[in-house]
């Protein structure tokens, strides 16, 4: 009896072309878009790269020239320098967006920028530093000129004051979070399959439900079977999404792809169960159930940072409980911890959360669908 239900549930779900198509095509479409939109952002905008700068030097100043040369060469260059002959020319470069700032050296040092971002702040830091050192030299010259050579020598030293320790071996591109969120959304959208558990098995929801209600197959068994079928579908959809992202779009999920699959499939199961619960709680039409499922998936995705990435750290900081209880965020975080952490502690924590949520959702679903007789059909 269980197997009969299970088998035919899978068959009907797999043949529901529209439905499956969209649960699979949806992540593919959005994933491709993310890939196209974000592939360069990290390299271009977040990861530090030498800042294009125009230099206008009206006075001969060898020290300045030497300093500029030293900061614009080598692997760790700070600036990418273009020399301009006049202030007008440099300003044109700036206005055309070819450079982020113009450094002018005529007596004092001046900086011209068109906006105020991190890159221009760094430019300013650079010019500030130049001025600082200039002041130190001037002060020393006044106080004790004899010390000047020692001072300039000291200033010339290339200091290695900072020891850098990378906290993770994971993929550092923060835009990968969009893909994590995308997978989390697929998991949440699996809730639509979960709604069908209720639609198909409740006599007051559909003729099929009424028909099933007349059969000698106990409702618990048929509900379990359909739920299991939906779980399998949810797992399949998320697994296909992971495969597509990892192998077709070549999104770098780090070295633990197997666990990514595991988390994604667990997410699919949780999402399906959530749908089962929603279907059982919202007593009215399919439309309303669907609307509530969408509100929860979409709202959850928003809070998890699918639309605006910055919302996630805000929530984590200001309302950690929301982040911990938002099913979409839980799925998203499981991928994230898998990527970021060396150990598995936090990942396991999220997996356990998913498991607990699944059990909870399923239990609620069963409690609210336990009715076998209806006041009206």
């Amino acid at each position, binding site marked *: 009896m269980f197997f009969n239900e299970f088998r035919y549930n899978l068959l009907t779900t797999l043949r529901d072309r529209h439905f499956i198509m969209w649960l699979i095509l949806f992540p593919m479409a959005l994933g491709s878009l993310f890939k196209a939109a974000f592939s360069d952002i990290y390299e271009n905008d977040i990861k530090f790269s030498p800042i294009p700068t125009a230099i206008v030097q009206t006075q001969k100043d060898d020290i300045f020239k030497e300093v500029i040369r030293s900061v614009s060469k080598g692997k760790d260059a700070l600036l990418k320098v273009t020399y301009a002959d006049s202030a007008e020319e440099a300003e044109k470069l700036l206005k055309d967006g070819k450079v982020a700032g113009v450094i002018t050296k005529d007596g004092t040092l001046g900086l011209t920028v068109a906006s105020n971002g991190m890159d221009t702040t760094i430019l300013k830091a650079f010019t500030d*530093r130049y001025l600082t050192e200039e002041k130190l030299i001037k002060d020393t010259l006044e106080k004790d000129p004899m010390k000047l050579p020692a001072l300039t020598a000291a200033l010339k030293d290339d200091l290695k004051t900072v020891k850098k320790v990378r906290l993770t071996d994971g993929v550092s591109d923060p835009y990968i979070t969009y893909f994590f969120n995308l997978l989390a959304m697929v998991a949440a959208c699996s809730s*639509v399959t979960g709604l069908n558990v209720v639609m198909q098995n409740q006599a007051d929801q559909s003729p099929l439900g009424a028909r099933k209600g007349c059969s000698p197959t106990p409702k618990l068994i048929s509900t379990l079977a359909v739920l299991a079928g939906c779980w399998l579908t949810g797992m399949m959809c998320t697994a296909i999404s992971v495969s597509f992202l990892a192998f077709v779009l070549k999104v770098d999920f780090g070295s633990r792809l197997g666990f990514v699959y595991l988390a994604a499939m667990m997410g699919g199961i949780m999402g399906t169960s959530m749908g089962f619960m929603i279907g059982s709680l919202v007593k009215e039409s399919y439309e309303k159930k669907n609307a509530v499922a969408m509100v929860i998936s979409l709202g959850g995705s928003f809070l998890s940072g699918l639309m605006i990435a910055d919302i996630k750290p805000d929530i984590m900081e200001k309302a950690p409980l929301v982040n911990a209880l938002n099913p979409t965020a839980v799925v998203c975080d499981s991928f994230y911890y898998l990527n970021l952490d060396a150990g598995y502690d936090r990942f396991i924590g999220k997996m356990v959360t998913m498991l607990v949520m699944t059990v909870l959702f399923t239990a609620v679903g069963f409690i609210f669908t336990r009715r076998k007789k209806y006041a009206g059909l």
Partner: protein
Amino acid sequence: MQVFKLFMQILKKKMPVAMIYVVLFMVLCLAFTAKGDGEMTFEESKVSIVITDNDNTAESKALTEYIGKRCRVIEPKMSKNDALYFNHISFSLTVNEGYAQKLAAGDTDDLFTEEYVHENYGAAYMENFLGEYVGCVRAAVIAGDDMSAALKSAEEAMDIDTEVKMVSADSGKMNGLESGGGFFRYLPFILISVMMYTLSAVMVAINKKEVRFRTNCSAISPVSYGGQLVAGSVTFVMAVWVLFMVLGALVRGGFDGKGWVQVLNSGVFAVASALVAVIVSLLINTEQTINIVSNVVGLAMSFMCGVFVPQSMLSDSVLAVGRFMPMYWYTKANDMLTGAELYSADKVAECIGVEAGFCIALAAVALMIFKLKVRADD
């Protein structure tokens, strides 16, 4: 007007479901607005930094105090890893034990430890800053100052500011990273989603094969039928749009000059989004899938047209595709109106004009699909 009336009657029946979505998107809209605020003014970027002082000496305290003046020192509740990963903090600094001793001895190696997750501008800034500070102190010591005087003169020297001149530029690319913030920035996603979710329910009911066939047998022409549907949709959309504008007025405390242009911009876009919704629900008419489709279309468009991620950050190829969507032009106009891009009245008018053009084209497409669909057996 029979079809128009039908549309309104069915709409009335679907109102409860529609209102669920309207309320959801209103809440989202407020959340977006709250999140997006404060991005409109240009401020000097301050690096967010978390400091651990393992040395705990007068020297290290002087340093952390001074950093406090130049940076935003925060203590995140979330783990340091997470905070760094999500750019909640840009730099995690540890003042290593023995900082003061080493500094006095003139040994500058590994005074600090920086924990990082990915390379970013903030870190580059801080490395430069620390190098400068230590360099200055060391130089001052070498020049004969004692430690406390050296610290002081280093700070003094570092307080010198470069005179910075701002010019406005044409290119958005260099104009910071952010798009215009505020209520109108995320509105296109909200509008197009709300239209698709609510309209589709009505359209699915109207487009049932049997009903369609029957209507087709009547004396009404497909163009008139489709036209009335479009008219109904646009009427509904305008009502929803007015609701959102009222919400916007409440959030912003009314509209001013450019604000009204933003209102106009969003109004034209609302019509376009209604037409997109009509087309989508003409093409896909099963209830189960329409929500997922709405989801994809809404999110995809918003990402491609620079609603979520600013246009200035998107690759040219994505923007090239985005140009074929009304949302792109909405965002472009809105970016200019909010100052994220150089404002030009002509260009704003041009953008709104393009959106209006899209409306006409979309309406034509909707009618064409409808004419084809009238006879389709599906």
